[in-house]
């Protein structure tokens, strides 16, 4: 079964306080970056999941987001799926 790497980007929903982002936004002008707004700090979760295809990998990860990785009451998430390609050496060994 192929393996897929999932990258889950979790961000606060609009209107939800983000003190870390707000603090960074206040710090940036001190370095001369005076035109920066909308700093938001979220988190990235990466995981590898075995699934028959990308669509099923995505479905599994989205379910994980709903049930654990994010709290839908206060957080939004975005899932990016990419198939893990076996390393070149391993694949060349597989070639007869």
């Amino acid at each position, binding site marked *: 079964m192929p393996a897929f790497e999932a990258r889950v980007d979790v961000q*606060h929903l609009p209107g*939800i*306080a*983000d*003190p870390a982002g*707000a*603090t960074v936004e206040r710090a940036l002008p001190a370095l001369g970056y005076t035109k920066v707004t909308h700093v938001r700090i979220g988190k990235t979760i990466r995981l590898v999941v075995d699934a028959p295809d990308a669509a099923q990998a995505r479905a599994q990860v989205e379910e994980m987001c709903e049930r*654990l*990785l994010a*709290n839908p*009451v*206060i957080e939004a998430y975005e899932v990016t799926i990419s198939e893990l390609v076996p390393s070149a050496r391993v694949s060349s060994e597989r070639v007869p």
Partner: protein
Amino acid sequence: MSARVGVVLFPGSNCEQDVIFAVEELGGSGEILWHGDDNTKGVDAVIVPGGFAHGDYLRTGAIARFSPVMSAISEFAAAGGPVVGICNGFQVLTEAHLLPGALQKNAGLKFLCETVELRVETTSSVLTNAARTGQVLRVPINHFEGNYVCDRATLDELHAEDRIVVRYVDNPNGSLDDIAGVCNAGRNVVGLMPHPERASHQILGSADGVVMLRSLLAACRVPA
């Protein structure tokens, strides 16, 4: 026989002894429920105390809900058993879907540690049955993520079913609709950010939390 109150101990809980002390001052008996146990030891009520259960990793309360004792508490609650979550315990109960909504970071972006005034909004809950509606209680808060939030439909439901148990008189953390505590539809599960156990004796600066803890003991329906 005195009411037996089980107080959950997760790795990272830090208010369990205070809760047990306060419960026992009022004539109840308190005992620890270890988070890894899969039962509630036959107690008459459960308190999920404050602290940082499982380090608050991922989100406050998010990992605690997978502790075996939480399944037992869910069953206990479903059977009508009184369950109260205080501070981190409230966060755990929302993550466990025993209570609606979530607790986000305080609007002022500050950790708050102060005594606030709460107004009792309903006496129909296991935490307020001995109080008066409109009664104002001085109880400490001690949190960073205490800013209650829920979607519009949930808020409408809370209003329609009179499930906002206590409100802040002067909202310290940005909570939606000044909400400091809510209950479930069965009114036997209550979560609140303020700490009644820290207002359980005049020597602590306030004894206003006593009426809440007495309510919980009364809800146990154990013959005195």
